[in-house]
């Protein structure tokens, strides 16, 4: 059974903290993605990676960075968390133009 896992389902952080969200996939997929989901706005792409150590900005990269040191792992980093980064964060992986497989999501609250 294919799987995308995320390090936390729920996370509460304070403004200014550095936050790491981890995502691991076991399908040997080339592509990995980080989205945030907010009511009425759908899924918005933050960053994606098509290979190890490669990354590209999505539609809303400001305030975020990413790291992909291994093929199966893609990390999202909030260098200095702010309240407007309170959201649901979803990781996904895919092979080229095929379907994306999503993780369960991390609901992040920044106080």
């Amino acid at each position, binding site marked *: 059974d294919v799987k995308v896992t995320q390090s936390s389902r729920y996370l509460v952080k304070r403004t200014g903290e550095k936050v790491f969200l981890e995502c691991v996939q076991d399908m040997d997929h080339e592509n990995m*993605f980080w989205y945030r989901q907010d009511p009425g706005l759908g*899924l918005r792409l933050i960053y994606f990676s098509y290979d190890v150590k*490669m990354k590209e900005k999505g539609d809303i990269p400001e305030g975020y960075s990413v790291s992909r040191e291994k093929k199966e792992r893609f990390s999202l980093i909030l260098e200095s968390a702010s309240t407007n980064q309170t959201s649901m964060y*979803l990781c996904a992986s*895919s092979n080229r133009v095929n*379907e*994306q*497989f*999503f993780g*369960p999501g991390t609901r992040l609250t920044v106080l």
Partner: protein
Amino acid sequence: GQQVMQIPQYQHVQEGEDFTTYCNSSTTLSNIQWYKQRPGGHPVFLIQLVKSGEVKKQKRLTFQFGEAKKNSSLHITATQTTDVGTYFCAESNYAGGTSYGKLTFGQGTILTVHP
């Protein structure tokens, strides 16, 4: 960048009624994927449409891709309470080799089914 507009934002139906959500674009779409997200869950892939005028069925679900590849629809016949959730369309971006697999999502349609 490419924008995919999805309507309606919300749809409330009685169990047994039909439901349709629409995706529209001002430019030609490469292909369309559809996802379903149950309440509290994550998006799950339903189907991909590639060809102009394509129609695909999955039990009570019918997916269509417009002749001009500028719109798509998902129709559910005789809704059931298990159909509750948010339905998203998404375009796969063929903008270049490194962008393969990147999706642009519509805003989603939230379906509520009253028993």
